[in-house]
């Protein structure tokens, strides 16, 4: 993983100017670099933005924009902390980005409680990022409770994906 990141860093630095669009996450048809090494020919194609370490796509896909929680908890898991370490590093490097942490809950709970639980989860992420040196002024939180599930089945497989805190990044308006 480290090697990949370093390799991509070099390429990414060369193509930074191509990534002026900070509008994030709408990269559904990104090209897979590995698929372009077909035959012996030399194919030229735009870089997958997710390979650019300064891109929002890199943040959301390579580092991971979300952490998951156990039922009715807001305690960060070891995997969650590892993801947040990556987020903190990225946000430290890319200091013109702001972050909004969205807290979510699964459908097993009343609406109001889940809003409050989502607030706890978002805040747990925020405090962790602050503990890693990020200024609190760059991180806001919002809770959606159970209003915005990403997985729709009524089973633990879906619930586990919905109990999440997602870090949404954007370029600061004033800069």
């Amino acid at each position: 993983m480290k090697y990949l990141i370093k390799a991509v860093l070099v390429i990414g630095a060369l193509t930074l100017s191509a990534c002026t669009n900070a509008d994030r996450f709408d990269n559904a048809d990104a090209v897979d670099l590995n698929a372009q090494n077909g035959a012996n020919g030399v194919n030229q194609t735009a870089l997958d933005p997710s390979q650019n370490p300064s891109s929002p796509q890199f943040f959301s896909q390579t580092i991971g924009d979300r952490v998951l929680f156990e039922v009715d908890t807001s305690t960060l898991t070891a995997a969650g902390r590892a993801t947040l370490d990556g987020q903190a590093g990225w946000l430290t490097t890319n200091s013109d980005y702001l972050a909004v942490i969205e807290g979510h809950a699964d459908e097993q709970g009343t609406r109001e409680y889940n809003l409050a639980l989502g607030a706890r989860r978002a805040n747990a992420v925020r405090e962790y990022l602050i503990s890693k040196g990020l200024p609190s002024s760059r991180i806001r939180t919002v809770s959606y409770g159970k209003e915005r599930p990403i997985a729709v089945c009524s089973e633990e497989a879906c619930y586990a994906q919905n109990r999440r805190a997602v870090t949404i990044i954007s370029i600061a308006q004033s800069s």
Partner: protein
Amino acid sequence: MTDIFRSDPPKRKLPVEKRDNKVSMSAMMTKFMTFMTAIMIAMAAPPSAQAQEPLRLTLRDGVIEALPFALPAFQSEVAGSEQMAADISRVIAEDLNGTGLFRQIPASAFISTPAGFGAPIAFPDWRAINAQALVTGAVAVNGSQVTVKFRLYDVFSGAEMGEGLQFAGTTDGWRRMAHKVSDAVYSRITGEAGYFDSRVVYVAETGPKDDRAKRLAIMDYDGANVQYLTDSSAIVLAPRFSPTGDRVLYTSYESGFPRINVLDVATVGRQQLATADGEMAFSPRFSLDGRQVIYSLANGGNTDIYRTDLATGQSTRLTNTPAIETAPSFSPDGSQIVFESDRSGTQQLYVMGANGGEPQRISFGNGRYGTPVWSPRGDLIAFTKQEAGRFHIGVMRTDGTEERLLTSSFLDEGPTWAPNGRVIMFARETQGADGTTGLYSVDITGRNLRRVTTPQGGSDPSWGPLQR
């Protein structure tokens, strides 16, 4: 089954002016029986065996035998009023049947029909088909105006119950006039206020679970006359009527963050409650005078309960713990607030004074308790209970005793009280990827569970007051 609705011994005296705050089917029956008895005594009619029989709304193991009533189609007093007369008759019958307390006798069983509104009633013809109450009426449409008259008779004592009444208004308000007749009939027979001429504000839902559009909607209690109060451009949650029904509090994400809005029902104009940057405000309810809002504020991941004066904007913090405190609801006398907190480790119900202070925990059963709502009569608290993967709507006394679960499903939540405290409406969501939401009502006895017909999905109902 916990019998919180047990029979009281019949009272001997007229209960006309006495206000009995106890919500119980038996109190209602007792009132009904004593009322009817009083009528019979006043009429000096010897209570024959036949006369005793029909005056009973029988309560057996918590099951009430519905009272049979006859409602001959209201007469058209002016040519061209026939359709309106038929529609009004139908809505009144639907109101009464819908309570589960009354059962309409089909017109095909009628031996005779009244010769005209106010004409002498052939009581033997109605006794013969075991009608216990008879509702007669007349409708007159004149241009855009409509007049509705009705009379109510106790068939077995052969007497009119109360005096005939007349309602007048515009034709587009015809449903309200039908509901007012139903309220009067219900009230005269049960001795309790009705709830038919009332409205419900709720969240209309469309689209799949992972892309659901929500907008505020208002409708008659029976699902008729749906109107939308907001569009679906931002998430809206948990609307709550003001005590007079003129305004609605709700939570909106139009700013990107949960904020509390106050919406004027007549103008659909709205204002946002000032909330500091970085804070989230939700779960609002009005105070009894409509001047203050109690709600939850999440700050730094911690959710507590606050009260804000709408005129001055002055805020008071009512709870101060690291736990989640939310879903506050005033007692009808304004002196207490019931809310939910997970300070014990799980969601439970607590009652505190209107100015905060040390709360008393009132829920102690297995499972989790949330969304408490104080009954308009003050005697019961309705709640959502979550236990072993099921959700229930339940009621308990305000000290937490005599808990009684009324419903059970994959996901029931968010009870709201009918203005007379006898019926609860709530939202039910079905299981699975194709899960949808809908509104239901249930009697506080747990009987008469019904789907409320809405054009789309619905959640978070708030039942408003009887209209004037």
